[in-house]
């Protein structure tokens, strides 16, 4: 598991307050209970805070799965560092 994926998993567990969440690159919103459109925004905001990045409005809606999310975060942290 990549560092980014494990940190994303931590944020998910924290936001949903559930230690049992396991994320794979193929995981989608369908697979996680309570991951609805409102929680999606809360997740994005918490991810921004955890990684010290900022998503653009064009980026938040189109993500297909966790793999794409991780890639997006990696692209932003790579620029940042």
């Amino acid at each position, binding site marked *: 598991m990549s560092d980014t994926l494990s940190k994303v998993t931590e944020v998910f567990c*924290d936001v949903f*307050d559930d230690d049992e969440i396991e994320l794979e690159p193929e995981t989608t919103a369908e697979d996680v209970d309570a991951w609805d*459109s*409102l929680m999606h925004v809360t997740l994005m*905001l918490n991810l921004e805070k955890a990684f010290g990045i900022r998503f653009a*409005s064009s980026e938040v809606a189109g993500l297909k799965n966790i793999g794409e999310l991780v890639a997006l975060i990696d692209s932003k942290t790579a620029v940042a560092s």
Partner: protein
Amino acid sequence: MTTLNAQQNQDTERFDEITVFNHSRKLRKENKHDEALSTLRNAMRRHWLSAEGIEKAGRQIIKHFKTHQVKTQNVLVLGQCTTNWLCNCLTASAYAGGISVMATEGQYDNVMQELMAAASGDVKYDAVVLLPWNTRLLAEGDRDAKQRIDDEITFWQQAWNFVTGQLNTRLIQIGYDYKSPGYQGHHLGGQPGGHINLVRQVNEALRANLPEMSFFVDIDQISGMLGRENFYDARRYYWTKQPFSEVGTARLSEHVFAAYRTMVNGPKKVLVLDLDNTVWGGVVGETGPLGIGIGDSPDGEAHRALQRYAKSLQNKGILLAVCSKNNDADAREPFEKNPDMILKLEDFAAFEASWDPKAVAIQRIAQTLRLGLDSFVFLDDNPVEREHVRQMLPDVEVVEVGEDASEYVHALEHGLWFESMNVTKADAQRVEQYRAEAQRREVQSSFTSMDDYLESLKMSADARLINEEDFARVIQLLGKTNQFNLTTRRHSPQVVQQMLADSNNMGITLRVADRFGDHGLVAVLLAVLKDHPLGTPGSTGKAFEIDTWLMSCRVIGRTVEEFCYNTLLNAAKNRNADYVIGTYIPTAKNVLVKDLYDRLGFTPINTAEDGTVTYELNVHEAEERKTFLAKVDADA
């Protein structure tokens, strides 16, 4: 006492948000749900959580309320924008403030439909919060300013009628705001026809048209205090139709909660002040009364500003008290000798300067003033004292301040504890009354018998039918009296009006005065005439049922209870009633009057599962009871 002393050494360690949530989650896994929630509450009260953390805490609290079917107060939030996060933050703010409130939202921009649904639903709402957004107000089109304002007010008036009518509950109306001046810019935007100008005008119109006894939350002021650039987050509106940033949402929720708390409980009643490095700079025991920091220095000016602020609160009817670790004589000297002091000894309703732990001293103040600790706010520069009071007296609101005295006034304002609906004359007189009460207590100690003492007070009582003048005050008392309140029924103005429309029913206010001063309006009695369904088996007849009996705690034990009893009994006789029926509904706060009816010779006839006790008094057998209050005028 030993345990309190031991607490003096506790650390004031600060925990970060992650630690707080991990700890809370761990407790929950061990099935320690209440402790898990206390962890969150403690963290919020100490300002350890970020705005995101507060929202998350709110989500967990709501989840807990739902899964454990906790009995909460209920607030319905309806907005012209998404209100999900506001509800979470509002629930969290209320929980931090010691009240279990579950805030639920309606569907986005569906205000009227949701109100109708609520009217036919099972949940009884304790308040409805209405949150406008400016989309319709500022929409394209050629309506002029007047038309736009009329359209908004007409819309909300329909909603208000529903809230105060069918739903019969409290109304909290949030105002309109703007994220930025828009294309017109700062100069034109503020002129007639400009967006900012339109927002300000519609807010004025809302204020002017709101039903009485509702609360206006001025979001234009609130966002201005934080700064609109921080209060709003443009992205959030496009993502979720919710314009506020996380910080903005949390801040707005604090104001909505303050509005709710003010409507339900009234403002906090007592501000307890430390002296050294709080009311003045430095330590008086070391510098003497003239050496303290209160004059023309930056630090001295800051302390003067605090004194001026406290003095204004006192003028508004908030009681001031001193709680200082000092020799009593040293603590009093600056008030007497330093000409730069704004506060004087007579501004304080209680003065506790000793070496006792502060929790003990504050409890003594509460006893002296006969007020619950949940109406206290405590300001102290010393973090150890603050933590000590937080732990020992969790009901007291402790102001979180830094070391710089220039922050004190802001910290007090920020807590919103002294927000009030409107200042009544009674509020301003209260200070005078409490001071007289302190003198009375001194007189009391020089008498040998209680009867002699009561006689010496030369008390008089004036019972009147509730009139228009007193009506607002009566509603205020129904809304906030907790301790001496037999049924704690928080009637709306409409309910009381309906009750009093029938002259067989009775609504009485009681004013008491004595040789030390006027206590003002101290008791409210509401009673309704009914057919007697409960009486002794086989008995028939009419019953005069006490719907509400509430009294100010300041006059307890002075035979005002007996005076009320006589008033009720005589009113029952005048109405040819056979019984007086009394009800005691237990709450967390009214144990004080648990056996009032027993003491007055009523007979318990029924105890319900929830502890509600119904009493009856046979009018034909009962006699007037002895009281030391002379009747001024009774039109009952």
